[in-house]
């Protein structure tokens, strides 16, 4: 990962005129509790590296899109920005001030400047609280309104601002009386109540109907223009982000894998993962058909991420240095068996012993022969797999194999963990070895 001075140097290429948020090498790790025996013995069960060395700067009035799948760490990152989860290391600066791991007491006044909008507007509103009370809540919590008349005036103004007008129609309604879009408007009214500078919006439209999404996005853009808001927009959908964001950061397993101006990212995506995300978006065009050749599998477990580049097991253009390892061998075998009739799979599976030995990060592994079978049989089987899938990038990662009596030893080329490298596209950096030395 780039160290702090690197980051500063990199960002000087496209300096935000007036940075509101600066994040440097932020890490948020969650320790696993493990079993009771392990805890008694004082063993650590490891940690989920939800955010693992993220750096960016966000200028005042700009919109940053944090894009990634479930488990990419985008939500944890946004919560860390607001001090809702403690940072393990790294710094978060707000308006030049270091706010990393501030105490709740010190953080409280800042909260009026930083607000959050959640994905599910139904869960974000108390069902037994009418809209007037819910929207007025921030005023009471921060004790900023003098009297009832002022609260009432400000609530009406906020409702009017988000399009819930005339406000009289909504003040006494309960969340259950409102549609999804109206609830999200009420949530936005509550969020702008204290005149925030930063709004962190976590999938604000993904629970809404297609026909309503545009309206809420439109409203958010209006609020940005009229109130000078800065946004962090979190989503898994690059289509909505396209309309809204100045900068796009693509996240994968706790890291930013591509970052740059939105226009460039959409016009010329550099990271294979970004390309896949763009190709997967459904297009209302029946002549296009289903996108094929998507990355196989899903985002891996963040407790023991893949070696080298964490995207390599799913990457269509991976090569020898991307971090091939034992777990990839298991994936390959399973993929191969998927294509066989059940009897043939049963026969082949019988040749190989337990596969669980492959389930840890290692570049030197033994593919064991089952009892009654030999390493030579395992070697022959793997050769057969290779003949069926000669173009799988996996084979580029195999350095050598050695036939032993108890199985086949497979050694892989060591991988390199990619940093955010400069790409041929101006201001765009990507964590992919295609662009690194």
């Amino acid at each position: 990962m780039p160290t702090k001075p690197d980051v500063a140097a990199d960002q000087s290429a496209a300096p935000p005129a007036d940075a509101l948020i600066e994040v440097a090498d932020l890490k948020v790790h969650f320790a696993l509790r493990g079993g009771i025996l392990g805890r008694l013995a004082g063993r650590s069960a490891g940690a989920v590296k939800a955010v693992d060395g993220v750096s960016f700067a966000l200028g005042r009035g700009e919109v940053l899109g944090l894009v990634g799948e479930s488990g990419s760490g985008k939500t944890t990152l946004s919560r860390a920005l607001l001090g809702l989860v403690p940072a393990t290391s790294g710094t978060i600066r707000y308006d030049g001030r270091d706010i990393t791991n501030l105490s709740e007491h010190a953080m409280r006044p800042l909260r009026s400047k930083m607000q959050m909008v959640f994905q599910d507007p139904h869960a974000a509103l108390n069902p037994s609280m009418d809209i007037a009370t819910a929207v007025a809540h921030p005023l009471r919590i921060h004790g900023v309104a003098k009297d009832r008349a002022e609260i009432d005036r400000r609530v009406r103004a906020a409702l009017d601002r988000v399009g819930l007008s005339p406000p009289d129609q909504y003040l006494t309604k309960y969340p259950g009386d409102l549609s999804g879009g109206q609830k999200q408007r009420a949530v936005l009214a509550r969020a702008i109540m204290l005149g925030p500078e930063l709004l962190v919006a976590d999938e604000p439209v993904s629970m809404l109907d297609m026909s309503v999404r545009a309206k809420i996005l439109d409203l958010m853009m209006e609020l940005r223009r009229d109130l000078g808001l800065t946004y962090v927009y979190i989503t898994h959908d690059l289509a909505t982000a396209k309309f809204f964001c100045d900068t796009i950061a693509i996240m994968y397993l706790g890291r930013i894998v591509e970052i740059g101006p939105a226009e460039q990212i959409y016009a010329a995506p550099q990271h294979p993962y970004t390309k896949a995300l763009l190709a997967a978006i459904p297009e209302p065009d029946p002549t296009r058909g289903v996108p094929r050749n998507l990355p196989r599998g899903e985002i891996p477990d963040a407790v023991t991420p893949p070696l080298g580049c964490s995207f390599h097991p799913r990457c269509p253009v991976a090569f020898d240095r991307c971090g091939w390892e034992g777990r990839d061998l298991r994936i390959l075998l399973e993929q191969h068996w998927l294509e066989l009739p059940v009897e043939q799979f049963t026969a082949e599976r019988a040749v190989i012993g337990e596969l669980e030995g492959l389930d840890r990060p290692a570049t030197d592994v033994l593919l064991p022969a089952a009892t009654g079978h030999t390493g030579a049989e395992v070697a022959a089987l793997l050769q057969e797999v290779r003949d069926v899938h000669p173009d799988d990038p996996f084979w580029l990662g195999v350095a050598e194999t050695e036939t032993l009596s108890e199985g086949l030893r497979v050694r892989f080329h060591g991988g390199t963990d990619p940093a955010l490298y400069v790409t041929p596209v101006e201001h765009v950096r990507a964590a992919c070895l295609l662009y690194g030395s």
Partner: protein
Amino acid sequence: MTGVELVEGGVPAPHPDVLECDELRVWYGTPRGPVRAVDGVSFSIGRGESLGLVGESGCGKSTLGRGIVGLLPAGTGVDGEVRFEGRNLVGLTQSELRELRGPGIGLIFQEPMTRLNPLMRISHHFAETIRAHEPSAGKKEIRTRSLEALRGMGIPPTRFEQYPHEFSGGMRQRIMIALVLVLKPALVIADEPTTALDVLVEAQILEILADLRRNFDTALLLITHNLGIIAEACDRVAVMYAGRIAEIGEARTVFVEPAHPYTQALLASTISLRTTELRFIPGAPPDLSDPPPGCRFHPRCEHAMQQCRRNEPIDMATTAGRVACWLHGPDIGQSAADREPLQREEIASADEA
């Protein structure tokens, strides 16, 4: 399986329809009066054909999907006919319907996490499913059939003995689909099957659904609010508005020349990478306990005419299928005054779905 065999190359021979809905009505009793969630819907699905059903929240699309298989709360009114392979399902007893659900009509819902038993191995789920409908099925047969079904969904056979928590959300949804397909239903009803999933996983599931016909000879009713999903997985599309079908037809044609103003508006509001401008449909779908008179879409329609406020539109044939909109006739009986544009009432921006 009964019915017509596919000819070589996956092109269906002239087939009888696997499902025909005829003037289907479903209504719920509420303190405000009956809510007509499905109000006179007719359509058919051919053998091995996929039909996408699209509409906004509250248009009755999920009720329609559940109504077909009789999965409605007690006290719900149902009228009309639902013929599955020629047999009318309306009025069947719960136990007759239960026998049919699974081997006849399979169901896929959203949120796959909540539908697998966390204490049961995947193999056990399959054994239970198959035995419930075919008590005589042998162990070996169950294993072979289950592995074949899982294989079609890209779940490696090595994971057959694992528990649900060992799979990711996308894999669990694929296991659910395999559990449905292992009984070889003639029709699968999928209600928002990808809503809780990420884009890449969604695309993987859509690929599977789009291939159902080729791999399993199964007809599909795919219910969603996203036209993009239908474009990728369906042969035909039905657009539902306020309990009725506004337009139905061959997908390729409907997406290029949408006939109904509502279909046009839905298409324009779908956000995709090709979208150049954010567009939305003004107003909200109507309250189904008191729908507007005439064409139910007229208060939100930019082409509304005097006629639309008074009379219900008549189904008219289009190149793709049929549409219920006065713009498409019939011309007989429409006077010049009928075709005068309708002044739309001001719609508050927040009055929305």
